[in-house]
């Protein structure tokens, strides 16, 4: 099966494993990520999302079980750098992942580490910066950019390694709404162009953009499925302390009041507007959808 990019088999992980103060963080996770997929991982604080993500590119190694990236075992040190090149990772705070004093020098950091020679190096930098729309700002120092721009620099830094997969660990959580939209647009474009996306997020609106959602709780997979499937399970979500996206909540409130059943459940604003239109839900005079 070579359209499987990442395969996780019965993954267990504990911080300080073997020591008396070991902290179990993952307790038997099995999953596969297909090439080109867009997967969201959600779950409340401490559920193990970041720990799982760090297994995808050998930043952490399983205490028990296996993680394979393109059939390479992450615990084999010979594959570490290859795996990190294939699975790129973007973190929460752009300030703590940008290395260069100028945008273009930072973007070059990854390929420099891989030993990419000139002129291929410069080409990669240009391509990556074009992809996130920051080519014009390549000579700026990063600290004079906005938060959203800085996070796009971080993404470009990963893209310059030409990864097959991009893992975003709460990459939008420190951004204001406008910057978040900027970053999400870049992510969606990359996905359309064929990059596999794994997005960890606390924003359910963001998770709804994915093709598949994995819900973690207590280091295990609690729920998995398409956004439709996941967000329709209201009871289960409540147990997991997750709140569906606002449009879904609105739709359910409308359903409860008017008796019309929306199917599929609208998860975005656009979908909600559409659904309301399609069902011609009677609206108060003068009101607009």
């Amino acid at each position, binding site marked *: 099966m070579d359209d499987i990019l990442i395969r996780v088999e019965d993954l267990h992980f504990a*911080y*300080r494993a073997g020591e008396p*103060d070991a*902290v179990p963080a993952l307790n038997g996770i099995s999953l596969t990520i297909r090439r080109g997929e867009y997967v969201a991982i959600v779950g409340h604080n401490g559920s193990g999302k970041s720990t799982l993500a760090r297994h995808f590119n050998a930043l*952490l190694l399983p205490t028990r079980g296996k993680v394979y990236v393109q059939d390479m075992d992450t615990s084999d*040190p010979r594959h*570490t750098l290859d795996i990190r090149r294939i699975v790129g990772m973007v973190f929460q705070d752009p300030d703590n992942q940008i290395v260069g004093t100028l945008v273009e020098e930072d973007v070059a950091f990854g390929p420099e580490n891989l030993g990419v020679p000139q002129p291929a190096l410069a080409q990669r930098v240009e391509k990556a910066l074009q992809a996130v729309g920051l080519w014009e700002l390549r000579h700026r120092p990063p600290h004079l950019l906005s938060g959203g721009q800085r996070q796009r620099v971080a993404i470009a830094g990963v893209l310059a390694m030409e990864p097959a997969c991009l893992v975003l660990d709460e990459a939008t959580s420190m951004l204001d709404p406008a910057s978040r939209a900027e970053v999400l647009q870049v992510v969606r474009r990359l996905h359309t162009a064929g990059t596999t996306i794994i997005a960890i997020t606390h924003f359910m609106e963001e998770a709804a953009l994915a093709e598949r959602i994995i819900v973690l709780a207590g280091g295990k997979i609690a729920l998995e499925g398409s956004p439709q499937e996941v967000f329709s399970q209201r009871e289960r979500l409540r147990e997991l302390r997750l709140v569906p996206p606002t449009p879904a909540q609105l739709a359910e409130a409308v359903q409860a009041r008017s008796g019309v059943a929306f199917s599929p459940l609208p998860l975005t604003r656009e979908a909600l507007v559409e659904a309301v239109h399609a069902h011609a839900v009677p609206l108060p005079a003068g009101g607009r959808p």
Partner: protein
Amino acid sequence: MNGTDKLVRRVVTAGVLAAIAILLGATRLGFIPVPTPAGNATIMHVPAILGGIMEGPAVGGVIGLVFGIFSFFQATIPMFKDPFVAILPRIFIGITAWLAYVALRRLNEYLALVVSAAVGTLTNTVLVLGMAVWRGYMAPGVALTVGITHGLPEIVVAVIIVVAVVSAWKGLARRRHARL
């Protein structure tokens, strides 16, 4: 994996601590007013001491080097516009601090921190003033006076900061299990 792990940690720790040293030099924060004729006690050498204690002599030495180079470039008085006074002595701050720390760590962690901060500070004071005398910027008697009025308060302040920072960080690390 472990080898490069350590290397990355050293490079990053050195870079971040050197940034603090530069920042302390560029703001008034690097000088703490003291009730002696010296007026100010500098704490710009503290990052080098911390680097030596936490990551060893190479890291401590490089932080001192970066700090020295920046204090040379920023100097506006003749004495510190001389690389022998501004740069060379700083390299040794983190190294002697590390030596003192490893020598006493077995005995008692706090004692080791206190002595290491004092030794690192003394290295700075003695070598800088020694160089100043050797290079003819200061008469030996003047240097001795400056050494005592600056050196003592600087030791006190450095000890406080080093002990506070290291114990807070180790405490945090234990609580958050931050060290992988």
